[in-house]
Structure formats: C-alpha cells, structure tokens
C-alpha cells in the first residue's frame, strides 16, 4: 500500500509527513505531531472531543483522513493562545468554570471559536445548537454556554 507525502499547516506552521492512506487526522495530530490537546473520545463521530478547525471550519478529526488535510490549514486547541494570552473563549471557560473533567473542553473551545468567528452576537439557542455535536459527560452545559457568552461579549468590546 502506497504512502502519501502531505503538507499541512498546523497552527500556522507548515508540517510535512509521509502517511499511510488510512491514517486519521486526529492520529496525525496526536501521534506524529505530539499535539495531544485534541482528544479522542468516542471515536465514532458522536462526541466532538476531537474537533479541530479545517480551513476555519469545525470538523471531527476522527472522521477525516490525514491525507484529506493535504494542503490545508488545521487549527487545534494549542493554536488558540497567542503570545501567552488566552483566546477569549479559553478565558471564558476559566472565568465561568466551563469545565469540570476537561475531556470535552478542547472540542468545545474549537466549536465555540468557530461560532464566534461567524456570529458575533449569538443567542443562547445559537450557542446550544452550535455545540450540539459536542458532548459533555459531566453535563456542564450551563457553564459552557456562559463561557461562550462571556467570550462573545469580550470579543465585541475589544
């Protein structure tokens, strides 16, 4: 079976890798690039713990082949903090206690960021719909919604 030489921009840095066809994007990130912030939860396209941005769009990286990301931009949770400063959504999770065990958090953060990039003033319903593909088994949704609302307000005011 042939391998493929791919070039993926991950969190702004070009990465090249020689990958087998069946390698999943989440495994490229976690195992080849050691970016373990992206979690694997259900591994069956339900839970959203593995959510990353592919060309700015949130997708479940357990259900994308690494080779499909060739030539594209990937943003993971490691790419949110800039110059030692948390992204407003990360700050919101801190301020509003948006995490308990933290397992779903990277995926929630990526989905939250993508939502705020296209909708600066989401309603509570918009937020709940946007995160409906991300499961929190601590059931901490109330504070996750508050965290994203906090981030929206912060991003509007700066």
């Amino acid at each position: 079976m042939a391998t493929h030489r791919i070039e993926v921009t991950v969190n702004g840095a070009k990465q090249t890798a020689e990958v087998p066809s069946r390698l999943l994007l989440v495994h490229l990130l976690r195992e080849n690039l050691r970016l373990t912030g992206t979690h694997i939860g259900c591994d069956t396209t339900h839970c959203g713990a593995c959510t990353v941005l592919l060309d700015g769009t949130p997708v479940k990286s357990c259900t994308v082949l690494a080779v499909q990301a060739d030539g594209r931009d990937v943003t993971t949770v490691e790419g949110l903090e800039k110059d030692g400063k948390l992204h407003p959504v990360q700050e919101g999770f801190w301020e509003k206690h948006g995490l308990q065990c933290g397992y779903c958090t990277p995926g929630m953060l990526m989905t939250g960021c993508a939502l705020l990039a296209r909708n600066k003033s989401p309603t509570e319903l918009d937020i709940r719909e946007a995160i409906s593909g991300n499961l929190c088994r601590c059931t901490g949704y109330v504070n996750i919604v508050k965290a994203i609302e906090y981030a929206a307000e912060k991003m509007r005011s700066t």
Partner: protein
Amino acid sequence: MIPSQFDYHSPATLAEAVALLTRFGEGAKVLSGGQSLLPLLKLRLGTAEHLVDIGRIPGLEYIKEEGGFIKIGGRTRESALEQSELIKARAPILHDTARVIADPLVRNLATVGGNLAHGDPGNDHPATMLALDAQVVATGPKGERVIPIDQFFVGLFTTALQPGEILTEIRIPVPPPRSGGAYVKLERKVGDYATAAAAAQVQLGANGAFTKVGIALTNVGPTPVRCAKAQDFLVGKRPSDGYLAEAGKLAGEACSPSADRRGSVEYKREMSRVLTVRALQRAVERAEGR
C-alpha cells in the same frame, strides 16, 4: 479505531475519478464527505481496497435554480444547504431536513449526494427527495444518466448506481406557487438516526384542494417508504383535519419497521402516522402562506 488498509486516490477531474472507479470496480468506494463511509470502515462493518476522493474535483458544490429545477451538486455540504436562502425560499422542506441531519460538525463535511448514495434508510434526504419527486444524475463511463428517485433506492444500502458511477447532481422540480413541504423527525437525541420521520410536499389548486401530494417516511423499512395510498387519498380533497388524519393512518400502514433500541414495530408505525399528520399540517400551512 483504524480502518483496514486501502489505497487512497485523489483525482483532479470527474473523468479521472470515473476512470479510477471503472478500473477498480467493486473494490472501490467514492469518498465524498466521509461522514458515513469512514465510520463504517473504522468499525470494519465494510471494507474497500480503494477510496476515490472526489473532494478535490472542482464544480461539484452548488445550489442553483435552472430550467425549472433546483439543482444541487452532489458534493454540496449539508451546512451549505442549511444556510441557502434559495432553499429556504423555494423548498423549505429541504432546509427542515438538512438541519436535523447528524450534528452541525458532521454537517460541515457531510454531503447531500453522499446521504443519498449511501442507501441507508436511516438517512434523512431520501424521504424528502421522494416527496419532492427529485431526479438523480449519475456520471459514469458512458456519460450522464438521469435516474428518477423512485428507481434509485433498490434495497438496504443498495442504490441504482453502478460501479464506476458517481452521483453528481440532484434535480428537484421547482415547486410551483401554492406549494409547501415539511420534514418532521423524531430522534432520541441530536445526531441520532430517526426513530421515524415523515416528509410531505403538497400543491394546492385555485379552489384550495390538493393537486399533488408527495409523502415518504425515513427509517421504517429497508428503503425509504413512499406512501402512495396516502398521497392518492388526498389528491382532489381540500385540507381538513379529518382527511390529514386518514392520510396519516394510511402512511402508518404503508411502512414496515423493525424493532430495535429506538422502539417496537407498533411504536414506530404509530409514530409514522403521527409524524405524517404533522408534516402534512406544516406543509399545508406553508402552501397557504401561513
């Protein structure tokens, strides 16, 4: 979970993709959004020796009105369908459908063509496309052919597509004035397949009576179920609670569900009845501009 080994191909043109599929025959699968195919390969419910990714072929993602049809490119994302103003205005039943497929993250990759070509009776577009009397365009080694939707779903996970063919376009006759449609789905939670769901598309004449009715059901049989008796019953009648209830009853009788964790045969049949009535009510409201 890791799928078993396969070779990946990323053709740049449709002709190249068809040539690859023709060369590899039954051993090849088309990779569109991958949101059904990749989970299936990971769970090893299926295998493929070759995946032909149509993701880098330009010109397969569009939603447009042309020649009396709404034309949807086979690789159009569900999220694009969900956000389309043309769809909201001209065929709201499709908007209803797109927004209840899986979850928003899956919809960012999942495609309309894939939802049909997968041949899964649990998928949501098949019933809607039946209600809308859609046509499917398949592109293969001999060029394009148009398949009426009633001939498309052959059996469980089986469609009329031949090896070497790619679903490249869906054509929906533009609903005339005084038309309306709706898709109503019962699901246990976001992302689940339907326990049952009903699609209804209606046209009303100048006197307010039904001139055309399309009704179909999701996940209550090995293929999506067209409810011909319920449709025929309504044509020529003016919408009334009694007639819609009778149509619901006929739809419930038309389905052949199997029992699973989502419910018993009796429950699913009953839900098919109830959901058909609700879909018809909403369809009539929309047709009457309410």
